[in-house]
């Protein structure tokens, strides 16, 4: 086959990491091919009912559980733009303390606040990151009232949604286009700069010869719905398929050095709070505040709300809770999230190339933090005016007094009764200079390879304790610029 004179780089995945990588590569004149497993969508596809958007935008329709002592529901996007199309758009720079930890534990080079500043700033400018220009909705105001009553402090979290119209459709894809998922600006810019984006293309294996990746074998579905196995040759490959698919793909391709053994997540415990007031959480954006006192180990925030999601939260004690559905207009959902300290793994399924086996075991510290977190969140909500706080824990009745909430400061929640979820996974292929811990060097080049790179959430050395999109984008840009320099 006659090869182009320009080098060809394949980027696998079009989420936060893949989009940044593709844009920078294409802008530098590199022949860039982006393979995205999911479909290409438009605004018309967004904002539909959760069950429909799960079918269209989510990996395996949202059925990718993390197994372990306590099974954890996990969802990620599977469409052009990846999870950025279905997340809340919250934007957190990685905390200084976390960067120091990564530097100390993983010998992560060139990862200080100062060195990452231009990359964060670049991404923030591209995505129009800022605070809401609309009055807070009731679910946010009630939360703020609770935080103030507790004497704690809060910050409104910046979002990647300039001009957000509070349609409550973040998790179904923003139908107004306010939220800057990768499909809104970065990927169109990358395509304008010459990148080719192939949707419906699942990378099955990275072809390798010695210390070089020579291309990718992918399963491509055409418009007739017929799948073809195709081979794409490349001078370099960037794997940006996400925290679970990147390690699975690498392992399927025979790359196993520290790959898929160190998955970290932020486990979340949801609660539904009933207030006296009409909240109408279904008609507004999710709560925008973050309590500062306990970050990054412990975070409280607001969760996506529909009647169906409320029913799911209440379903752990449905016979006792179902009557609460009548009060759904006075209810809102919140969560306590912990910076997971347990450890998980990702393995490709032997039975199929379609999914990975994901495992995570809650550590005793996770469990303790979840218990304390529930106590503090319930206290906060009660102080904010909640009449009842329903945690998604089987057998745990609604918390109606601060005294009942305080119980969990000292007692531990029963692990088998927990219904946990997460939308944040990372660290399955940590980067850094520590050969005994890291799958790739500090800039994402996979150990033992000259031209195989990681550039997504899988590379974060450890749990950042905050929404990882900003970290992923900043590190991805730093890495790809380094690649272009080299």
């Amino acid at each position: 086959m006659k090869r182009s004179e320009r080098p060809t780089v394949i980027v696998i995945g079009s989420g936060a990491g893949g989009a940044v990588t593709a844009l920078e590569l294409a802008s530098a004149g590199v022949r860039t091919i982006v393979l995205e497993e999911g479909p290409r969508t438009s605004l018309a596809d967004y904002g539909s009912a959760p069950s429909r958007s799960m079918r269209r935008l989510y990996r395996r329709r949202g059925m990718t559980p993390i197994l372990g002592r306590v099974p954890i529901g996990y969802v990620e996007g599977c469409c052009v733009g990846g999870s950025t199309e279905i997340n809340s758009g919250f934007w957190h720079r990685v905390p200084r303390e976390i960067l120091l930890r990564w530097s100390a534990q993983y010998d992560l080079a060139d990862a200080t606040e100062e060195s990452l500043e231009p990359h964060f700033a670049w991404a923030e400018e591209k995505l129009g990151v800022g605070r809401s220009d609309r009055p807070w909705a009731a679910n946010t105001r009630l939360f703020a009232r609770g935080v103030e009553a507790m004497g704690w402090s809060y910050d409104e979290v910046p979002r990647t949604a300039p001009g957000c119209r509070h349609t409550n459709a973040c998790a179904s894809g923003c139908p107004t286009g306010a939220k800057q998922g990768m499909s809104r600006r970065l990927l169109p810019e990358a395509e304008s700069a010459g990148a080719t984006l192939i949707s419906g293309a699942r990378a099955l294996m990275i072809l390798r010869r010695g210390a070089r990746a020579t291309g990718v074998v992918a399963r491509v579905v055409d418009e007739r719905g017929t799948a073809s196995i195709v081979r794409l040759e490349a001078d370099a490959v960037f794997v940006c398929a996400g925290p679970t698919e990147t390690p699975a793909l690498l392992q399927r391709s025979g790359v196993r050095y520290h790959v898929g053994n160190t998955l970290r997540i932020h486990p979340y415990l949801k609660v539904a709070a009933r207030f006296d007031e009409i909240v109408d959480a279904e008609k507004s954006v999710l709560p925008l505040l973050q309590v500062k006192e306990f970050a990054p180990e412990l975070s409280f925030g607001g969760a996506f709300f529909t009647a169906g999601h409320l029913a799911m939260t209440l379903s752990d004690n449905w016979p006792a809770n179902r009557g609460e559905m009548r009060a759904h207009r006075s209810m809102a959902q919140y969560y306590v999230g912990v910076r997971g300290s347990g450890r998980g793994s990702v393995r490709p399924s032997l039975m199929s190339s379609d999914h990975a086996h994901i495992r995570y075991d809650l550590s005793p510290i996770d469990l303790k933090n979840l218990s304390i977190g529930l106590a503090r969140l319930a206290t906060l909500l009660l102080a904010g005016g909640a009449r009842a706080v329903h945690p998604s824990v089987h057998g745990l009745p609604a918390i109606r007094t601060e005294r009942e909430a305080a119980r969990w400061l000292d007692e531990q929640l029963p692990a088998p009764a927990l219904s946990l979820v997460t939308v944040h996974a990372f660290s399955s292929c940590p980067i850094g200079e520590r050969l005994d811990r890291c799958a790739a060097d500090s800039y994402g080049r996979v150990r033992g390879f000259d031209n195989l790179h990681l550039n997504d959430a899988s590379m974060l050395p450890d749990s950042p304790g905050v929404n990882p999109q900003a970290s992923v984008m900043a590190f991805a840009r730093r890495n790809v610029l380094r690649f272009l320099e080299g």
Partner: protein
Amino acid sequence: MLGRRAFWIAATLVGLAFLAAAVSRLDLEAVLAGFRHARIWPWVPLGILGYLLGHRIRGRRLARLVSREATLTTGSATHVVVVGYAVNNLLPARLGELARAWMLVERSGLSVVQSLTVTLVERLLDAFVLLAFFGVATLMMPASTLQIVELRVALGLLGIATVALGVGVLAPGPVLGLVSRAANRWAPRAHDAITRRAFAALSGLAYLRRPRQALEILGLSVLVWSCEASLYLLMLPAFGLALKPVVAAFAMASTNLAILLPSTPGFIGPFHFFCMRALVTAGTPREVAFDYAVLLHAAFYVPITVWGGAVLASQGLSIGRALALSRVARALPAASSAVTAAPWRAEPEPKPSRFMIALAEAAIPLDADGISGESRTAVVAEVATFLAGQLEMLPTRLRFAFDAGFTAFRFATRVRFLRGFCELPGPRRSAWFEQWAYGNAALGRSLFRAVRSTALLAYYEQPAARAALDASSASMRPAHETI
């Protein structure tokens, strides 16, 4: 070229040798008398009907087998199957299998390797089912030494093929890694091509990786061969023989196992020999058995050849187009706008089983919300469809666990109520479900956690449920209207 011709000649000679063995020492008068007294109506048409129905089911099986990789209707798949059989009837050495693989490539856009893999899988499944038929029949009637040899050879070959197929189905990743490493070592220049073909072959097995789907395919295979057995069965009374399913199954399995190997066009010779021999083993006189084999072969040969010829004549089998399509599958389509703009296609929703519908109905508060009549039916159908689709998406090992759990639940229901879960009256069914889903047994709760959450999520999206919810919340009076 010489080799291929020699192969054809050898295959033809073998076929003729079997035919000679079949007709040797036959009483010609008795043979002709048998034909004269044969009762064609209604047995032969009925038998042919069963046989043709079997081909329709073969088409369904093929469509399902390729459904993970391509869109093929049952009608098109049936045509592919029939053309394969027709070509086998007209050309020697089972060349119909290749024609069928080419046609599958043309109709579905699959690669040649995928298409051949699917064809091979079908043959293996056929051999499985035939062996099962053969084994059961030999338990009930005495088999000859030759038939026992036939069984042993078939078992041996099938054993090897099964292991290979099993490894390909259960561990595609390691197989691919092995192929890649071996190719890198022994044929580095051809590494990419070999790996790609291995991928194509493994993806041809995709449908069998889900236990439920593998069972479905096995079930369809049993149905296919039951239909074919009906042809053998209904031909027996045409010659005044007793309508014995065991004899029919024995003759069918014995004959078809023998003709799995390449031989003459239409298997003339081996078909007659093995079919006749099976009947003789069952105590039928040789002349009658020969008559039976000849008429059966005609019923086996003529309709399918005509059908296949008609398909070929009306639709054409363009080898050139097939080759062109398979080349597309191998090319680099990165720049193709058709590929880059591939739109989202809704995968067909699995049809919920009766059990799933009953489960969905038990998990949602229809009675509390006063939803009845047509609305109720519509809501339950929507929720059950969503639920079935979601559970289908679970990782394989988890689906296994769920299926096992559901089986245990249904068994417990039967033990407890002496009735199936679907037969329980609505309120009792809901109460029983709640006992499991919200009870003290962690295992029961784990089993139904996904079911109840998923069902409730879908339920509150239904207009009828939403209207009931809004009506009930309107009756509540909060202390303050707004904050």
